[in-house]
C-alpha cells in the first residue's frame, strides 16, 4: 500500500533546504562536540580524584586505624556515575552541615551537558521550525491554494506535524549516533548493556520533548494570524517553560511548606549530644568509684549513649522526611514545565536523579551498618584473645569490605522516571488535540 503524503514530503524538502534548519543542525553538532570534549575531561578528573581518595584512605588506614577513631577515616567514597559523562551529576551532598570546602559545582550550578543541548538548543530549533508552519502559509496565500484541493485542514495539520517532527528529531538522531560511536570507541568508558538501553530510552525522551515544543509551535501558529506575533509569543512561552517555571518550584515550595531551618535542627542535635556526654561522664565517674579502671569504665559506659543516639536519629529522620516533602512539592510545581519533566526523567534513567541519591544514601547506610558490625565483632574477638586490648589500639581492617557503589537497576530507574515521561506524553497529546481542534476554525484567506 502506497501512502500518499504530498504535504509531508513538501514540508520535509522545504525544511531541509531552509537556512534555519541548516544553522540549527550545525549548531547542535558543534555544541555536542564541545559538550562531549569538556564533559569527558571533567569525568576523567572526577574518576582520578576518586582513585586518589581511595589510595590515600588505604595508606592512612594501614598506619592509623584505631578502634576508637576508625570511622572518622574509614568512610564510603562514591565514584562518578557512568552516565554522568553526558549528563551533569547532582553532588550527593545531603549532609545537614556543609564545610567551607565547596565543590566547584556548588559555586556554578548550571552546566553544559546534553540536558542543555536538547533542553535549550533543541527546543529553540523546534519552535523556530514551527512558528510559521500554518501562519506563514496563510500570509503567503498558499494555505488557501492547498485547501482548495480535496485536503482537509486537519490532514494538512497532521502532515505538517509529522514532517516538522521528523525535521526536529533529525539533528538529535545525528548527535546521539555520533556520541554513541565516540563512547563505544573510548577505552576509558565501560558502559554495560543496561547503560546502552538507558541511553536509548533517554534519546526517545529527548525526541518526545522536542516534539512537545514543535506541537506548541504548531498550536500557536494555528491560532495567530501573523508569523511575527507567533514567534514572539512562542519565545515568551519558551522562556516560561524552559527557564522560569523550573526555577520557581524550589522558592515557592519553601514558602508554601515551611520546615524548621537546619540551624535549629543542628542546635537540637548538639543539645542531645551535650546531654549524652554529661550522662556518659557521670556513668564513668560512678564506675571508677566502684573500682573499675578509667579505660574499662569508658568502655562499659558506651551503653548509656544508645537512647541519645536513637533520639538524635529520630530527629534527623523527621527533618529529612519534612525536607523530602518540601522537595516533592517543589518538583510538582516545576513539573508544569515540560523541560523540568524531561530533565527529571532523563536524570532518573541515567542514574543521577533524586531516586539515585536515595539509593546511594541507602547503600552507604547499609555499608556503614555492615562495617560497624564487623568492626565490633573484630574488637570483641581481639579482646578475647588479648584482654588488655583497648580503644586506642591498632585494628587491621584490610579484610573488611570497602564501599562499592552499585548503580540502581534499570527497572528502578524506569519506575522513578515513568511519571515524568507520562506527563511529557500528556503535554504532547493535549497540545496536539488543541492544535487539531483549532485547525478546524482556521481562516485560510491571506491578510
Amino acid at each position: 500500500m502506497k501512502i500518499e503524503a504530498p504535504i509531508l514530503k513538501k514540508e520535509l524538502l522545504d525544511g531541509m533546504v531552509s537556512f534555519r534548519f541548516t544553522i540549527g543542525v550545525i549548531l547542535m553538532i558543534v555544541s555536542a562536540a564541545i559538550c562531549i570534549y569538556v564533559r569527558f575531561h571533567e569525568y576523567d578528573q572526577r574518576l582520578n580524584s576518586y582513585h586518589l581518595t581511595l589510595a590515600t584512605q588505604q595508606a592512612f588506614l594501614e598506619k592509623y586505624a584505631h578502634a576508637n577513631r576508625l570511622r572518622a577515616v574509614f568512610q564510603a567514597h562514591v565514584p562518578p556515575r557512568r552516565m554522568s559523562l553526558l549528563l551533569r551529576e547532582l553532588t550527593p551532598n545531603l549532609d545537614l552541615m556543609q564545610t567551607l570546602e565547596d565543590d566547584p559545582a556548588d559555586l556554578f550550578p548550571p552546566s553544559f551537558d546534553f540536558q542543555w543541548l536538547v533542553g535549550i538548543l533543541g527546543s529553540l530549533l523546534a519552535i523556530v521550525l514551527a512558528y510559521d508552519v500554518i501562519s506563514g502559509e496563510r500570509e503567503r496565500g498558499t494555505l488557501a491554494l492547498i485547501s482548495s484541493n480535496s485536503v482537509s485542514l486537519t490532514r494538512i495539520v497532521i502532515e505538517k506535524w509529522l514532517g516538522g517532527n521528523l525535521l526536529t528529531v533529525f539533528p538529535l538522531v545525528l548527535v546521539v549516533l555520533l556520541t554513541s560511536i565516540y563512547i563505544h570507541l573510548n577505552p576509558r568508558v565501560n558502559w554495560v548493556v543496561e547503560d546502552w538501553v538507558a541511553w536509548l530510552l533517554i534519546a526517545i525522551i529527548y525526541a518526545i520533548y522536542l516534539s512537545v515544543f514543535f506541537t506548541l509551535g504548531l498550536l500557536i501558529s494555528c491560532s495567530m494570524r501573523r508569523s511575527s506575533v507567533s514567534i514572539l509569543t512562542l519565545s515568551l512561552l519558551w522562556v516560561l517553560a524552559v527557564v522560569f517555571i523550573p526555577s520557581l518550584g524550589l522558592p515557592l515550595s519553601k514558602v508554601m511548606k515551611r520546615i524548621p531551618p537546619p540551624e535549629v535542627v543542628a542546635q537540637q542535635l548538639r543539645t542531645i549530644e551535650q546531654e549524652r556526654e554529661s550522662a556518659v561522664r557521670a556513668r564513668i565517674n560512678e564506675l571508677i568509684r566502684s573500682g573499675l579502671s578509667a579505660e574499662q569504665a569508658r568502655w562499659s559506659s558506651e551503653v548509656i549513649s544508645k537512647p541519645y543516639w536513637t533520639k538524635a536519629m529520630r530527629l534527623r529522620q523527621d527533618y529529612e522526611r519534612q525536607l523530602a516533602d518540601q522537595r516533592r512539592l517543589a518538583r510538582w510545581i516545576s513539573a508544569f514545565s515540560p523541560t523540568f519533566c524531561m530533565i527529571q526523567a532523563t536524570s532518573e534513567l541515567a542514574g543521577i536523579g533524586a531516586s539515585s541519591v536515595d539509593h546511594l544514601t541507602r547503600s552507604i547506610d547499609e555499608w556503614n551498618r555492615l562495617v560497624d558490625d564487623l568492626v565490633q565483632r573484630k574488637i570483641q574477638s581481639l579482646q578475647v584473645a588479648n584482654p588488655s586490648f583497648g580503644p586506642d589500639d591498632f585494628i587491621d581492617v584490610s579484610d573488611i569490605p570497602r564501599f562499592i557503589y552499585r548503580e540502581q537497576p534499570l527497572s528502578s530507574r524506569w519506575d522513578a522516571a515513568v511519571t515524568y515521561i507520562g506527563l511529557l506524553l500528556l503535554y504532547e497529546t493535549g497540545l496536539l488535540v488543541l492544535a487539531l481542534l483549532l485547525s478546524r476554525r482556521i481562516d485560510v484567506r491571506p491578510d
Partner: protein
Amino acid sequence: MHERWGAWSLAKQVMQRVILKGKRVRRRMFRELILKEMRDNVRSSKFLLASLAIILLVIASFHTMRADYQRRLARFSSANQNPSDVSIPPNPLSIFVKGRDELIGRSFRYSPTRGIFGPNPMEDHGVGFISTPDLLFVITVVMTLVALFFSFDLISGEREAGTLQLVLSNAISRDVVILGKTLAALVCILIPFIGSVLLEVILLMGDTSVPLSLPHLGRLGLLLLVSVSLISCFLLLGTCASIVFSRSATSLTALLFLWAVLVFGIPNLSPLVAERLVGVPSRDFLLQRRSQVWVKQVVEREWAERRGDEYSRRRVQEMWESIVSENRRLFEDHQRKLDRLVHYTDYVSMLSPVGCYQVVATSLMGVGPRDYADLKRALARYYYGRAIDASEENTAPFSYHRRALRAGFDEGAVTGLGVLLVMNVLLFLIAYTLFLKADVRRV
C-alpha cells in the same frame, strides 16, 4: 585685497549658515526619526506582548524573591547563637540578584574534625538552566530576548517594505539612522521594565521587613544603568543581523540561536573550561584529608603516652595548634585554587555580554563568588587565628564587612563593565560599517 576679504567673509557666512541649517535639519530629522520609530513600536502588538510579559515577570520575580529573603531573614533571627558562632544576615539586595547569598548569609562554627562549617543550603541544583527567578534572570534572559525582537527587522524590515530608500533620500546620514532606530527601540523596551522595577522598589521601601538603605538604592540604580548597556548591546547585535540578512525571518532565526549561545551557552560552559585549566580537588578528598589530620595527631599523642612520654600542657597545646595550622593550610590551598577557578570562569564568560553583565551585577550587589571568598577568609582568620585555650570572651571579635562599592568594582567587575562598553562601541561601529556598504534597494 579689501574686496577679496569681503567675498571671503560672505562665503564664510553662507557656509556657516548652510552648516548650521544642515545641523538643524539633521537634528530635526533625528528627532523625527526617533519619534516615528517610537510611535511605530508602541502601536505594534510586539510592544504590547513584550510589555505584558516584562511587567508580569518582574512582579512575579519580586514577590518570589521577597518571600525567599523574608524566609532567610526569619531563619537568621531564629538561629540559636553560641558565643563562638558567626552569623551573617541575608543581603537585602539578594532580592534583586541572589548570586551566592544563600552561601554567604548563614551561621558558621568550627570543630577540629570538620573545620569551619555551616548549614547546607540544600539548593536543588540541576532542576533547570537558572537557579533563581530573580531580576538578573529577567534582565539576562527576558530583556535580551525582547531587545532582539525589537531590532531583528530594524533595517531588513524597512528594506522589505521598500521604505529604506525613502528614509535615506532625506538629508540624514546612515549613522543617525542606526542610532535613532536603536535609541527608539531602547526607550520602548525600558519604559515597561524601569516602570515595573521602580514600582516594585517603591512597594519594597514601604515594607519594614526589608531594610533597603540609600547605598542599597544607589547600587540598584547602578545595576539598572549597567542593564541598559547590556540591552543596548543586544539591540545593536539585532541591528547588525538586520543589516547583514536581507530577510527579517532569516535575521530572527540567526539571532535566536546566537542568543541561546550568548545567554546559556558561554556562561554555562565557562566553569567547565576553567576547571580544565585549574584542577580543584574534590570535596570528598578534602574532607578526608581534614579527618586524617586530626586522627593522626591524636593517635600519635596516644602512642607517645603509651611509650611513657609525658604530654605536657604545652605539648597538648602544640598538638592542637598543629591541627589548626594544618586545617588552615588545607583551607588556604583550596581557596587559592577556587579563586583561580573563579578568575578564569569570569574571563571565559566575558566572551559573552551576558557573562560580563553577570560578573558586574553579582559584584555590584555584593553576592558574587569574590564576596563569598572574602567571607571565607574572614572566617578562617577568626577561627584559625584564635589561641587554642583562650576563653571565648577573650578572643578578638569576628569582623567581616561586605565590600564597599569601589572595592567591589576593583577586580573582575571593572573588566566586565569595560568589556561590555567596548562591545557596545564595537557593535555600533560594525553596524555602521555594514550599513555603509549595504544595498538599500527593496529585496
